[in-house]
């Protein structure tokens, strides 16, 4: 099954010390390398901050484009991994290893498989 591991965190309000940022980046690089080598990795990306987001809706066929994310919440989506694993427990194991689980929270969503039959 494919699962999207969504990485949520609260946006940093102030810049952290360079040494701390380096340590965090090292954790992310280590995780990224581990998940890519494991064979479960399908895709993964970090997202630009929500300030760069644009929301689009169609109202009566007309595009309504607005600045910012759809809803204001404390935790915002910062990136994701798409993994292919046998079951939820395995997906949870990968989510638990992700540094995002310590700095924020991980949401695990199965990918819908549309029945071809």
């Amino acid at each position, binding site marked *: 099954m494919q699962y999207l591991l969504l990485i949520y965190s609260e946006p940093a309000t102030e810049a952290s010390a360079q040494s701390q940022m380096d340590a965090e980046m090292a954790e992310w690089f280590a995780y990224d390398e581990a998940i890519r080598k494991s064979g479960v990795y399908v895709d993964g990306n970090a997202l630009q901050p929500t300030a760069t987001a644009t929301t689009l809706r169609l109202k009566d066929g007309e595009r309504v484009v607005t600045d910012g994310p759809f809803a204001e919440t404390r935790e915002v989506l910062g990136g994701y991994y798409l993994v292919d694993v*046998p079951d*939820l*427990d395995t997906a*949870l194991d990968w989510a638990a290893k992700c540094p995002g689980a310590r700095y924020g929270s991980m949401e*695990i969503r*199965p990918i819908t498989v549309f029945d071809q*039959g």
Partner: protein
Amino acid sequence: MNGWAADPAEAVFREEWGRLLATLVRWVGDFDLAEEVAADAIAAAVERWPVDGVPERPGAWLLTTARRRAVDILRRRQNYAAKLAVLKVEAERDELTRLTEPADDGGPDVIGDDRLRLFFTCCHPALAADARVALTLRYLAGLSTAQVARAFLVPEGTMAQRLVRAKQKIGAAGIPYRVPSATELPGRLPAVLSVVYVVFTEAYAASNGAALLRPELADEAIRLARILHRLLPAEPEVTGLLALLLLVDARRDARVDDAGDLVLLDDQDRSRWDPAEVAEGRALVLDALRHRPPGAYALQAAIAAVHDEAPTAAATDWPQIVGLYDALRATAPSPVVDLNRAVAVAMAHGPAAGLALLDELAAGGALDRFHPLHAACARLLDRLDRPADAVVAYRRAIELCGNDAERAFLLRCLAAAESRAGPPDDR
């Protein structure tokens, strides 16, 4: 076979349902289909067995019948997934032959493993807590949807919906049907134990409604704990949980008087406690306590055992109980443990010492809406001859209490405190 003539469907159903379903879920990989063919097989048994006699291996008979039904249904579905499922079910023929052999052949306990799988799937932490309890009562205890609905005091339609949604989540989220590995087990077992414990506590202090005690629910919890203990005999917390349930349940008959009113532990007629349950619980708790450090269920069971061993309330070894609460606080700290410890301290060292701890706890605020805190304060204030303060605490407890029988008890205490306090003056 005695007994099942009275209500054959119920007896067959309850005895075999959990086992049958557990194996069928693994074979067909689908709760709904497993449930449907299990029900068909049991209906067939109810029809055939009184005529043909009960087969030598009733479980294998039911499994064979259910398997045939599953293949029939899957063949009719005609899609790719169903074809795969048929192949898988056909491949289980060998296993079925093994299952039909006599039980004491020393082979692996296939059905036991399936039931354990079912426990871990139904109690998976990715499911909502109330869904876990509902699934466990429905699929492991074998209660009907109507009975599970009664246990939760919700309409049957609501419960049916809750079960459907829970099963959908199991399928759609890919919650696996397997027993966690030895390294995962410590992380996953507490959720399973907690489901059984919740069923039991709900039986004991029905959180809302008229009945103080729902014995049928307590019986289910003990039955589930026994199944778990058979499946995981070396897990000390499983042993501890079964011990705890037995040691508390032993007092069931003495806990409510003839009028259906609550009787506190101190006032219970101890000759009405069930000696067999006490003895079984004691043996289990000694076993569970051998594991160091003892787990939270084992410690709670030990506390229950100290109460059960005292011939009179006055003879209770309160210092030992305080010591056990200290250990419990180290293992599983919670405000409720602090509350119970404070009550034990009041018994061991006097009401003033207990009240000081309760005041501290009340100041923390976590238990502000928890009526047992206010009831405990009220009782200690009563004992300290401060009836006017006791009245205030009793009123708060009554306001928060959802159980009719318990509220009636608190109202009686309130009336007594009010008469001691005299008419309210105009301070």
